[in-house]
Each structure stands twice: as structure tokens, then as C-alpha cells.
């Protein structure tokens, strides 16, 4: 792949992941087995509604699963990265790495 192809591949990056808030969410879930809504809320600094909508979009793309359960009487929303989500995130990282390497060459 030559330099122009690499830069061209920038256009092929997954736009769903490229959005900063969703990128942070996926970065967190990539290194963990699972995390709940409260942890993601604190770590991302997003608002409740905003985080909720990003999680829904990631769930619709089947990049994450969302399990609604109870801890005692308290509802808990647990998020996990799926196999497809992990593969998409790794592909995205590789694409961005190649583009950045090309830009600094």
C-alpha cells in the first residue's frame, strides 16, 4: 500500500467509532470485561442522555451488548464489547496508526 492509498484509507475508517465520545467508550470497554453505565458516565464526562444515545448506537451496530439487570433492588446497566466490536476497534486503530505514520514520514 503506497502513501496515497494509506491516506485514502482515512475515508474508509469506521465513522461510528471515529466519533470522539464513542471512541472513548470503546477504548474503555476494550480493556475491560464489562463496565456499568455509572462508570462510563464518570469516565467519559458525558451527560446521561448523551451517553445513553451513544451506547444505543453502538448496540445497534452490534459493537456492544447492554444488559439491564438488578443489584439488589437497584437497576444496573452493564455494557460489554462484542467480538465484532473488538475487531472493528482493532481495525480502526490500525487504520489510524497507518495514516498518522504516513503523515509524519
Amino acid at each position, binding site marked *: 500500500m503506497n502513501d496515497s492509498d494509506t491516506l485514502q484509507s482515512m475515508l474508509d475508517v469506521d465513522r461510528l467509532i471515529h466519533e470522539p465520545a464513542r471512541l472513548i467508550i470503546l477504548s474503555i470497554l476494550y480493556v*475491560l470485561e464489562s*463496565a456499568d*453505565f455509572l*462508570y*462510563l458516565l464518570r469516565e467519559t464526562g458525558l451527560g446521561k442522555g448523551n451517553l445513553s444515545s451513544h451506547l444505543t448506537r453502538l448496540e445497534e451496530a452490534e459493537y456492544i451488548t447492554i444488559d439491564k439487570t438488578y443489584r439488589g433492588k*437497584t437497576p*444496573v446497566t452493564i455494557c460489554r464489547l462484542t467480538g465484532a466490536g473488538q475487531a472493528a476497534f482493532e481495525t480502526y486503530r490500525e487504520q489510524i496508526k497507518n495514516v498518522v505514520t504516513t503523515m509524519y514520514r
Partner: protein
Amino acid sequence: MNTQSALNRAYAHWLKDGLFEIGIGVLLTGVGTLRAIIHFAGEKSAAYYWLIAGLLVFMFGCAFGFNWIGKALKARITYPRTGYIAFKPFSFNYKSILGMIVLLIFAGILGGMLGMLSTLPNQQKIGVFVPIGQGIVGALALTYTAQRVGIKRLYYLAAFSIGVGMVIGALGVGVVLGISFFYLCSGLVLMVSGSVALMQFLRSHEPVDLNSVSQ
């Protein structure tokens, strides 16, 4: 945010409430106390083998009990305040196996050296260096963790580890008692440090109403 910093922040989240320190503190205090009692009782004592068995039961009890109690306490104290996370299970890849081999070799060398030192005659002189060595190893581990997760109190604990190692070394109580006192002092300080961290955590984080937070 890169993935390594996300992981470091997750570790910091796990350590922030001080529960882990309290657990390790209880373990070290128990081991140090029992080991010192075994030393004072002596091999000829009738209770010697009971005490050895007690030490093993205590260590295994801590290993299993802390997992269960820790999860229950985290669910009650930490998760309602700062959220729940679960780390990925340990995976046997090339890096982790290599790390385990290095750790086992290091532990084997260290254990062998301590075993050999405890049989040598002049225990008072040798006993000076063993707690100091332990203090340095403890300080290195704490500094590495502190640097990785960014929790300041671990730096103070690292400094304490060297300090207590030097003080016990200077007392010249011998290898076995030196190790026992080092564990005992470190355990007590970890319990105090963990309790202070827990109180600060409880004061600075109110439980979040999950009904209003969940989607």
C-alpha cells in the same frame, strides 16, 4: 484516551476506595503475627504444628475469603458511588507466561536465599539486611503501581516500606523475626492507610441514584 491509560484509570478506580489495601493489610498483619508467635513458641513446642497449620489455614482463608468479602463490599460501597467494572480474565498469552516464569524464578531465588540465610549462624548480622531488602522490594512495587495508576498515597507507603525495613534491620532481630515484624508493621500501616482512603472515598462520593442514571 489510549487503551493503556483507560486500563490504568480502571486500576486506579479499583484501588481508590482503599478496600484492597485493608485486605492486604489484614493478610500481612495475620501472617506476621502468626509467624512471630511460631518463632517464639519454638520447634519443640506442642503447639508448633498447630500454629503452622493455623498459618496455612489463615493464608488460604484470606485468599478465598477476600474474594467473596471483597466483592460484597465493593457491591455495597464502591459500585453505587463510582460504578462497576470487571477486569478481563487472565489470559495465557506469550507475555503473561513469560512474566509468570520471571516472577516464579525471582520468588524461587528470593525464597531460597531467605531459607539459606535463616540457617546460617550469625543471625543478628544477616538479619540487618533482610528487612532492608524487603523494604526496598516493597517500595519498588508500590512506586511502580503509584506511577502507573497515579495514586499519591502509594508513594508515601513506598517511603514507609523503606523506612520500616531500615528500622527493623537496625534492631537486628534476626532473619525470621525481621521478616515477621516487617509483615506486621506493613500490614498495620496498610490497614490504617486503607481505612483513611475508605473514609475519604465515602466522604467525597455520595451514592448515585441509579434509577435516575440508568438509561
